[in-house]
């Protein structure tokens, strides 16, 4: 029940409405649940409302950690001269 997607604000309108672009699809949504929002911001969209801002920095950090996790393991394995974790 919580399907929500990231979308970029492309225009702000009266009545706390905004136009967003989600993967090439545009739609008018309400931003009335957000304290402040600016064109260019990414928001999480749910049932026609923007629910939260998305933090680019945190996203990058999460991806970095995912990438590192695996790489670290590979590197450790290589260093130890054995094969990596067994794939399921």
């Amino acid at each position, binding site marked *: 029940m919580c399907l929500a997607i990231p979308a970029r604000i492309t225009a702000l309108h009266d009545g706390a409405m905004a136009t967003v672009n989600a993967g090439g699809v545009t739609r008018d949504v309400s931003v009335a649940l957000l304290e402040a929002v600016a064109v260019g911001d990414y928001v999480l969209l749910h049932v026609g409302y923007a629910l939260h801002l998305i933090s680019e920095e945190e996203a990058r950090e999460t*991806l970095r950690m*995912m990438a590192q996790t695996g790489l670290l393991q590979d590197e450790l394995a290589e260093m130890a001269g054995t094969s990596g974790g067994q794939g399921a």
Partner: protein
Amino acid sequence: MKYVSEFRDPVLARNLARQIAAEADPARQYAFMEFCGGHTHAIFRYGVHDLMPKNLRFVHGPGCPVCVLPVRRLDDAIEVAEKHGAILCAYGDMMRVPGTGRRSLLSARAAGADIRMVYSPLDALALARENPQAQVVFLGIGFETTAPATAMAILQAQAEGLANFSVLCNHVLTPPAIRHVLEAPGIDPEQAVRLDGFLGPSHVSTVIGAHAYAPLVARYGKPVVIAGFEPLDVMQAVLMLIRQVNDGRAQVENQYTRVVTDTGNQKAQGVMAQVFTLRPAFEWRGLGSVPDSAFAIAPEYAAFDAEQRFPISDKASRETKSCECPAILRGVKEPKDCKLFGRACTPETPMGACMVSSEGACAAWYTYRRAEAMGTPAPALEPAQ
């Protein structure tokens, strides 16, 4: 699609799978409940199972509002449309759910009731504006993610003086349900599900914040890792849970930091507090009556409360006999344990809500892995790499 595609990356998935395999203790069994249907869906749709070690099990929790809505509340909605002639607006998710006698909103519409599928409560408001002579009722369902939008619609209707708009409110709350699963009141402890931790809700948490789970963790000693709904999010959160279990820790951790903060969306919380009031108890399908677990519309907004506006009759609502949804929603049974699964009960002829909602455990097993669930030989799995 930014913030989506990156989290479905096959190379990162392989990395995470290796790390999980490396860190999972072969001597242990890991049972993690994904509370949210959104996680259930992601796990099945992307075949996350296939990337997990054999000793790790996902337990599918009650976090699908479609699945936990008692038949009686759906029957009420049908009654409002059929008997009181209202235009009933519902999310697509609800349209096929079978009520008493297997009647759904779709079959009521086929029989002549005016039932509209909407994408947002804003669409229901627009319908109320366009049809001033008709009563327009919005069927509000969902967790804390969805409830703020409903609350906003009521405030908007009030501001516009839309006298023909009301809400049939079935919004439910996450932390009381998690507490209920853990306490398993009245359940034989032998039968209660053994859990090693929770994948915490993604989008509910954007509203209520990570701190909301702290009391639960403190009281029951089970780790909670808030996780995004993309498959890599799930995998990373699993890794974080394994580490907590291996370390003997029980903490609230947040994998989904790009959207979830400690305190959530306080404006949304404020709107909910304004428009809604806590019901002393609410019936959940599978869980039974759960205290303080749902919203009603506050007395100040009674004019927009469909339960007040329409004389909704007492009726003998009936769950489908021998549907095991209740036990499945508590995590103590699996769809394959249901005699009807894949036979009388399929997504086209669902006997229970868990077979309708794409987040329901039965629908997920049937749609994505029924070969295994029904005991026919699983198709040979190509190597994941």
